């Protein structure tokens, strides 16, 4: 085989891969935004964008896992708010910060267990079950805090939210990349991933071929809630305080990032690497619209139009007749 044909074959493979469109979109978007706003074309800006994206990126990884399985988790926003408040309350109560973080993430994964139990044993559609859970979390938080949520500062939270390795690379970005690596290995180099994809394509067939689909559902929702919990703790450090709707934007954004990243919303097809670019696209769009000094109305309209256009461009489902 001649050198050139190997080259063209590789190119074909890259273009055909499921994550090509989203990365192509990201690059085009970045070029366009950099032309419109020259400040975007700098390393500092890129690191800033990655820093802002890291929290969404972590939530979206869990969301991707759940969507690949054929479910959806709309309670991530509630879990994230819950996480910031538990962490703040624990630190206020003088519990060592490291322990507080671990306890918070553990408590959040219990929400995932709750979601999974409803979906498995009561056979409630994932969308409805997680919606109900979200409602319960939001009500409980309002009752528990009476609208005045606790706030806390400590070195560990500061480090997670604002810390930088060697003064350049944010700690939150490192954590995000580690999470991406773990999810990539889990989904693409492990039996666990095969089972997830199989169950996402056909739950019944997977169950009949001996996969414990219930256990898989439990693990996926637990992981999704745990990731939202982790992101919540980091975000608390980043923002510096908590408020009642702190997690709300992450609900829509995590789902959109996943779908923009090439994961089919009906499950079974997709990739966590695509989700990374999907999350960056959302943050770049939002950042650029913010910088352009537009009103909230114009920002939301443009954001809606842009996301729908991206979805129409490449997230279309192939419908069979």
């Amino acid at each position, binding site marked *: 085989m001649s050198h050139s044909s190997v080259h063209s074959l590789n190119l074909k493979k890259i273009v055909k891969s499921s994550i090509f469109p989203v990365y192509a979109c990201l690059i085009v978007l970045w070029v366009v935004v950099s032309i419109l706003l020259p400040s975007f074309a700098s390393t500092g800006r890129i690191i800033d964008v990655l820093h802002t994206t890291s929290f969404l990126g972590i939530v979206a990884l869990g969301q991707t896992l759940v969507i690949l399985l054929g479910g*959806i988790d709309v309670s991530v926003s509630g879990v994230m708010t819950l996480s910031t408040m538990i962490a703040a309350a624990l630190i206020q109560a003088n519990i060592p910060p490291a322990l507080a973080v671990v306890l918070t993430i553990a408590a959040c994964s219990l929400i995932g267990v709750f979601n999974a139990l*409803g979906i498995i044993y*009561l*056979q*409630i*559609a994932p*969308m*409805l*079950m997680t*919606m*109900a*859970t*979200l*409602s*319960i*979390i*939001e*009500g*409980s938080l*309002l*009752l528990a805090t009476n609208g005045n949520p606790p706030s806390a500062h400590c070195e560990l939270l500061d480090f997670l939210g604002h810390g930088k390795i060697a003064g350049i690379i944010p700690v939150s970005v490192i954590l995000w990349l580690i999470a991406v690596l773990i999810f990539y290995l889990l989904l693409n180099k492990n039996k666990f991933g095969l089972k997830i994809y199989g169950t996402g394509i056909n739950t019944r067939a997977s169950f009949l071929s001996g996969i414990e689909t219930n256990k898989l559902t439990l693990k996926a929702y637990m992981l999704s809630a745990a990731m939202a919990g982790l992101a919540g703790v980091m975000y608390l450090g980043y923002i510096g305080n908590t408020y009642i709707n702190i997690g709300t934007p992450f609900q*829509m954004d995590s*789902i*959109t990032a996943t*779908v923009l990243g090439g994961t089919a*919303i*009906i499950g079974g097809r997709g990739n966590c690497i695509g989700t990374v670019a999907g999350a960056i696209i959302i943050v770049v769009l939002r950042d650029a619209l913010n910088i352009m000094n537009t*009103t*909230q*109305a*114009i*920002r*939301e*309209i*443009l*954001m*809606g*139009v842009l*996301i*729908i256009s991206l*979805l*129409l461009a490449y*997230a*279309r*489902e*192939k*419908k069979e*007749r």
Partner: protein
Amino acid sequence: MNKKLKVKFSSQRELLSVYIAFVVIVFINIFLDKNFLSINRLAIILTTAAPLVLAAMGQMLVILTGGIDLSVGNAVALIACVSAFVMPSMGLTVGIVACLLSGIIIGLVNGLIITYGKVPAIIVTLSMQLFWHGVALLIMPRPGGSVSSAFFAWVNGGSTTWAGATVILLGLIFWKLLKNTSLGTAIYAVGNNEKAAYASGLSTDKIRVMAYVLSGIFGALAGLMLSGITGSGDPNVGATYTMNSVASVIIGGASFLGGKGKMRGTVLGALFITLLLNVLFFSGLSSFYQYLLQGAILIIAVGLKSFGDKRKV
């Protein structure tokens, strides 16, 4: 005769939980509020419930086709803003026409993108809610505006409850539409088995778009009622209507997968949620309990239904 009775009962079973829930909540209301059964109070409750009942009817149409509309809340808020924006300068008639037209446009846009763009309903409507909220903010950056005084009096007329009567009338029309027209049957057919519906000659794409357009019209009516009740428009009131309309439909016994569901279930579901809020108000409990209870009730209602289904199989 026994067989006939059995058939009757099994067709009602999906509605059983909403019947029970509704009766229980009515009794709690009577217990807490001595004037509950007066014409005046019932009229007020029916008027308060009107926007949710109408939004839930629209949501039901979409869910029947196997879709979902997560933008309905912000669409309702947008229409209320259109109403409060147009009416002061151009009068009642133009206002109502503008609202209905906006509703049709909203439904058409959602429906066309979902059906012909072939992007799943969840993700389209999730993105469109942002868009509609933006448009509402564009029309009305902060809550305000006003509706024509005749309209305000008509909606909040106390014991002469025209608004309540209109909702009942609309409910009846909607019921007939679902039950006795070919469009109604087609909507059920598309939700039940789209391939079979297509194979038997229905243009499933058109029917789906029609369902979204009708849902948009119901959203418009809900928004009109909302603006009539408050006498103004507020771009930020939408979120509760999305969750509550889905909850009304599901508590009302419709299948989340489409193809199954009854109008009276949805109406009772929406009334149930309104009465639940009424209970919180009269018992002096924090309104924060609303979210907690709604979530719990959704889980219980759907959970009970799936247990019933399992036993049947």
